[in-house]
Every structure is written in C-alpha cells, then in structure tokens.
C-alpha cells in the first residue's frame, strides 16, 4: 500500500515537490491577486473604520499562518523524533523563518491599523503580547538551529525545544490573558455559525468572501515557500556530502 512515508525519501520528496510546486505557487499568486484586488477595490468601506478595515486581508491570514506554521513545525518535530525522517526535520527548519516573517507581518499590519483605530501603535494587549512572545520563540528556535554545527544534533535539540516551547507558548497565551484584559476584538471570522450566516457578531459576508480567498492564498504561499526551502536544504546537504566525498577520494 502506498504510504505517506515514502515521501520521506529525499529523492522521492524532491521529485514530487518539483511537480506540485509550480501548481501551488501559481495557485498562491492567483488567490492572493484575486483576494487582495477584490478586497481592496470591490468591497465597501466599513461605516466606522473607513478604508482602514481593508488591512484585514493581510493581517488576519498572516496571523493565522504565524500560528499554523508553529503547529506544522511541532508536527514535523514529532515526526523527526519518532521516525527519524530527515526531510521532516528540514521542513521544520524551513518553516521557522517563514513563520517568523508572518508574525512580523501580523504585528506590523496590526500596528498600522491600530494607530488610527485605537490611537496607538502598540498596546500590551494579550493577543499582541502573545504574538511578540511567539516571535521570540521563532527567533530562539532559528538561532539554535544556526548555532549547533552537527545537523542531527541540531535537529534533535530544536525538535525538543519546539515541543517544550509549544507548551510554554500556550501557557503564555493564557497567562497574558490573566495579566491584562486587552483591547483586541475577539475572534470574528471563524466562529460557530459563521457558515450558517449568522452575521450578528462576525465579519459581514461582503468582507468575509475575499478574506477566505486571501487566507487560501497565504496557506498556499506558506506551503510553496516551505517546499522550496526544504528542497534547497536537501540539495545543500547533498552538495556538502558530494564535496566531502570528493575531498576524501
């Protein structure tokens, strides 16, 4: 039976990802162009927020991917620890900078939106604070990868750091809730009843439809970047091995 683990073979992984990468990348471009153009030019302005509401099309998908990238790294780290597939460890490594950039985008767009709306670039609000902490976790994770010379040791250490960090990131998320009640609005995109059309407490359908397209675009963009970066890592490693063999021979 064809198992998912056969893609753990680097050769098979490169072959398959070479085939799907263009599809995913162009899908990401298409979804982002459609979603952003639709969102920026063909939706009405919010009656209170004016045109600033449109930053939602970058802010929300980036924030979503910032969290999901960490979740993906957690899964990849667990797979590395349990099954020792190198592709998995490399994928986790490849996702970290992408996730960090998503976190920065979410924080920056949030600040740009917050300045006119809340009257401040930054507030020590639980959501903002936990994103800042998440960013620190990304930095520490990447720094540890860069600092350890032996690849397998680095993969093991970062995988365990990722697991421990996930627990502490969750703890921090709820600890900051306790510490300050905050300014940020609650979840209003993916709540229960959102599909059923209950528009009382959530983003109106006019804004939601292009938002979902943008979210799809960000997901595809993330997958494409991770695939590309993982391929690069595999090829770089293969090149190092070849060079080492040449020196030996």
């Amino acid at each position, binding site marked *: 039976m064809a198992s998912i683990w056969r893609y753990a073979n680097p050769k098979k992984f490169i072959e398959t990802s070479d085939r799907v990468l263009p599809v995913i990348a162009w899908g990401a471009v298409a979804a982002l162009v459609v979603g952003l153009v639709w969102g920026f030019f063909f939706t009405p302005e919010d009656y209170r927020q004016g045109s600033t509401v449109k930053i939602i099309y970058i802010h929300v998908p980036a924030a979503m991917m910032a969290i999901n990238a960490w979740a993906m790294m957690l899964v990849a780290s667990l797979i590395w620890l349990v099954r020792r597939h190198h592709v998995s460890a490399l994928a986790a490594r490849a996702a970290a900078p992408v996730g960090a950039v998503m976190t920065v985008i979410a924080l920056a767009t949030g600040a740009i939106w917050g300045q006119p709306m809340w009257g401040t670039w930054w507030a020590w609000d639980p959501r903002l604070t936990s994103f800042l902490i998440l960013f620190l976790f990304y930095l520490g994770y990447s720094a540890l990868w860069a600092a350890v010379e032996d690849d397998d040791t680095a993969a093991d250490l970062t995988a365990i750091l990722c697991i421990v*960090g996930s627990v502490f990131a969750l703890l921090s998320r709820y600890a*900051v809730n306790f510490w300050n009640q905050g300014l940020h609005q609650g979840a209003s995109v993916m709540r229960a009843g959102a599909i059923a059309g209950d528009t009382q407490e959530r983003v109106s359908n006019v804004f939601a439809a292009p938002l979902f397209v943008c979210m799809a675009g960000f997901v595809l963009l993330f997958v494409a970047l991770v695939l590309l970066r993982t391929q690069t890592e595999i090829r770089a490693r293969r090149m190092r091995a070849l060079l080492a063999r040449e020196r030996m021979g």
Partner: protein
Amino acid sequence: MSALLIRDLRLALRAGGGFGLGLVFFLILVALVAFGVGPQGALLSSIAPGMLWVGALLSCLLSLDRILALDYEDGSLDLLATAPLPLEAVVSIKGLAHWLTTGLPLVVVAPALGVLMNLAGPGYLWLVLSLLVGTPALSTIGTFGAALTVGLKRGGLLMSLLVLPLYVPTLIFGAEVARRGAEGLSVATPLALLGGITCGTIALLPFASAAVLRVNLR
C-alpha cells in the same frame, strides 16, 4: 543522589564568586532601577513588585551556565551520564542545587531590597511567598536551557534568548501575586497558578532536559 547534591553545593560554595554574584547583581539592578526612574517613593512602590521579580529572574539567568558547563568541560558530566543514577535525576538534582544556591538566597534578601524599592507594607509577605513558590520553576526551566546549550562555545547569549521566553508565564503569575499582595487584593488565583507552573515544570521538564543532554553528550 544526596552525594551529588552535596558535591554540587560544596562546589558552588567553595568555588567563590558564583554564590554571592547573583545577590550582588540583584542589589545593583535594584539600585540601577532607582537611578533610572528617579527617587519618587510613590513611583518606586508602584513598580516594586514587578521590578523585584524581574531582578530575581535576571539574577537567576546570570548563573544558569554554571549548572552544567563546568561539569561538561572537565568530563564529570560524561561520568554522571554513565552512572547508574538516571540522567533525569541528575538534572533534577542540578536544578535543586542551583535553586538552593541562587533562588533561596534571592528569596531571603528580597525583603531587604523591597525596603529600597519602597514596597508597600502588606507586600513583603507575598513577595517572599511568590518568590519561594516561583523560583524553583526558574531553576528547573534554566536547567533545561543550560542542557540545550551545554555543547556550544559561547552559548550564554543564545541560552538567554531561549530561556527568557520560557520564563514569561512564571514571571506574569509571580509578579501578579506580589503586586496584588502589595495592593491588599486577593492573591489566591495567581498563587495557585504559579504553584501549578512550578509543580508542572519540576515534574515534566527534567525529562526534556535529560533528553537534550543525552543528545549533547552523544
């Protein structure tokens, strides 16, 4: 196990410097904060609980690389790893020794520094209690950070980057207990959560520390 604990305590006491260094650092930090924000009593007393907690945390951080680095360099860590004592127990003892030589003295001197920071009257008891409950978590988390970076040259800065985000929940609840205590509010909830974090880290984190230490000793 007790032999290892006694050995670590003795080394910490006799090596000189390390034992008192954290305390002196704590004192200097408090003085620097006072210089930085100015001598107004009301301002100092409003930031006192948080500043004392941050000071204790940084003093703790300062001595983390001593937990394992010396043993790693002279090879005794390899001996400990091959000894019949499980590595999980070794890192637990190391954390305990670090707490006894760093955390506990901080708890003892904290009230004196509270006077310098013009801490409000009812705050002293809760400051000491919150530090007493919270600093073991700082030592345990710190041992994990030390185990992660033990094989690295100049790993100190990297360790700070790795450990400080892990300290966030402990700091939030600890400082909250001290702040609420100083303002005469109820402290039961944050104190219980702080205790929960301490118990949880002591129970679970040694497994992660031992796992990374095994990787680093490979």
